[in-house]
């Protein structure tokens, strides 16, 4: 088996496109092998960087490109790198966040399985930019095949001198460790990830200090998402201006979107930022409409941590600013589509169960609050809801939002709040009639 996952991508449509790039070779069955990767221009950027560029120049180029973090928060990548203190006598570390655990998101996995070297090359360039000689790839433990691919690719990279001592005769040494997770959403959160590498429970750390100042073993550390790092070799090869020419003014470049749920063509699609969500859902080259000819009820645009969009808000460009304006977030790019026969209460119950289970328990509002929310929502779902339950939910959500150590608390309540606002009638119906407003039947 060449491809582990049968997931659909738009690589074929991208072939020959001068802009889209992350998915250019992901339908090539041999792209995961070093030989094929080199044939497609692999490690050229790494050579350029080591041969001709100073670390500051690399950071400058990435800053100029406008690349922003693809892990969820959208923080400018070059700027994050520049926070690493130049004069610190400590070691520096770079961690590639390959935890891919935000429900609705399955894009990093495609890159790791099918184009693992581009991830390694991006990590290497990032490492050089911050003066790091030991970098980590943190992959969730369930991804056995990704782990295998990245392991093989790393071995190959070492054996041909792309990693290791004195790379390309430049005098630069760089080692890589693949660290696998063990089933915890919190280890995708950057400080949980650092604790997990250190051999601790994957709980969040209080910031400041930020990881760029004090991360792994109290040394400056950069955590970047797989997709962010995979864009870096392309930026070096083709230049910041080329990258900037894609996307919008403030959201440059392309982004991978995972389209799932009630959709005719679920899959992973690379598009320029600013691409229409409406088009992604309905165009026959992408989602090709809602499944079973049903009507749209809601879209969760950026993974389960982001507020739901009502159908009238779906005509929105997929970029950081526009989605914020529409009341949601771009998040990780996990677009989940719900058709008309989906119960909002049932959906929210799924999500809150997840967040309650994954709460690391470090801070009270999230640890206790997610439990209370689950109890009340379960009660409503079971037809035992009371007249003041919605006010209780409003109040608990309000008391969690903005009062937690890490963003998981906010992530748990923002989707709930959005449905309490936009689908309040449906919540009320559920309480009054002790059943769903819609006839939901997700048979199998």
């Amino acid at each position, binding site marked *: 088996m060449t491809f*582990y*996952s*049968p*997931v*659909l991508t738009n690589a074929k449509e991208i072939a020959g496109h001068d802009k889209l790039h992350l998915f250019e070779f992901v339908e090539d069955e041999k792209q995961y092998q070093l030989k094929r990767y080199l044939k497609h221009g692999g490690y050229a950027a790494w050579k350029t960087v080591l041969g001709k560029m100073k670390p500051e120049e690399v950071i400058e180029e990435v800053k100029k490109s406008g690349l922003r973090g693809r892990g969820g928060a959208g923080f400018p990548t070059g700027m994050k790198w520049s926070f690493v203190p130049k004069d610190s006598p400590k*070691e520096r570390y770079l961690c590639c966040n390959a935890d*891919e*655990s935000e*429900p*609705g*998101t*399955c894009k*990093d*996995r495609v890159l790791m399985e099918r184009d693992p070297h581009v991830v390694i090359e991006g990590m290497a360039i990032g490492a050089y930019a911050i003066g790091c000689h*030991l970098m980590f790839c943190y992959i*969730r*433990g*369930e*991804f*056995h*095949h990704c782990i295998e691919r990245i392991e093989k690719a790393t071995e190959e990279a070492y054996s041909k001198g792309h990693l290791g001592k004195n790379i390309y005769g430049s005098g630069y040494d760089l*080692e890589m*460790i693949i*660290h*696998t*997770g*063990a*089933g*915890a*959403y919190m280890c995708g959160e950057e400080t949980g990830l650092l604790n*997990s*590498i*250190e*051999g*601790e*429970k*994957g*709980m969040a750390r209080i910031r400041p200090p930020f990881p760029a100042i004090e991360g792994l*073993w109290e040394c400056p550390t950069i955590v970047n998402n797989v997709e962010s790092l995979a864009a870096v070799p392309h930026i070096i090869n083709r230049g910041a201006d080329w990258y900037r020419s894609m996307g919008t003014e403030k959201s440059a470049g392309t982004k991978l979107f*995972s*389209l*799932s*749920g*009630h959709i005719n063509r*679920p*899959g*992973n699609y690379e598009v320029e930022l600013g691409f229409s969500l409406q088009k992604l859902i309905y165009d026959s080259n992408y989602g090709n409409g809602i499944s079973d000819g049903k009507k749209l009820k809601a879209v*969760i645009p950026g993974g*389960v941590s982001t507020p739901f969009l009502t159908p009238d808000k779906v005509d929105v460009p997929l970029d950081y600013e526009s989605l914020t304006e529409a009341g949601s977030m771009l998040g990780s790019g996990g677009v*989940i589509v*719900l058709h008309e026969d*989906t119960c909002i209460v049932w*959906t929210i119950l*799924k999500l809150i169960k*997840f967040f309650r*289970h*994954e709460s690391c328990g470090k801070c009270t509002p999230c640890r206790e609050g997610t439990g209370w929310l689950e109890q009340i929502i379960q009660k409503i779902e079971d037809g035992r809801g009371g007249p003041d339950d919605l006010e209780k939910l409003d109040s608990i959500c309000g008391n969690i939002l903005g009062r937690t150590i890490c963003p998981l608390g906010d992530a748990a309540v923002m989707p709930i709040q959005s449905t309490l606002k936009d689908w309040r009638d449906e919540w009320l119906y559920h309480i009054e009639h002790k059943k769903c407003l819609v006839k939901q039947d*997700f*048979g*199998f």
Partner: protein
Amino acid sequence: MILSEKTVKKIREKASKYPKRKGAILPSLTLAYKQLGYVDNEIYIEISEVINVPQLEIAEAASFYTMFPKKPRGKYLLQVCNNISCALLGADAMVDRLEEKLAIKRGETTDDGLFTLISVECLGSCCTAPMIQINDDFHENLTREKLDKLLESLKNGK
């Protein structure tokens, strides 16, 4: 020693790469789990001797992660994703069907020790939902027919 020589060697190799000893805790637990299918106190003690980290610290870390069960499970570990993208496409019904076919509830193991069924959170296969992970392998885009066939072939030891 319950850990095999091979596992111990692998643990030593991996541990030598980490700047601090405790970094080797998760990789060691993972390697031990790979060999045994569980990790318990006895194993923490063995790991502790190999990587020179107090047993308590190993136990503490292990307790946080769902992938280090203390008891062995069935020969085939069936993990059904029950998160939203899979649930929208019938994951709940799929778990019901598995419970019925295997005559166990989620969390349980069949009497012959062949199957353990658990429902888990998102496995990063949302665009190929519904899905199930069986040991190391993902089975995606499942239908009732595909699932039944899969179960049959496992029962027949293929």
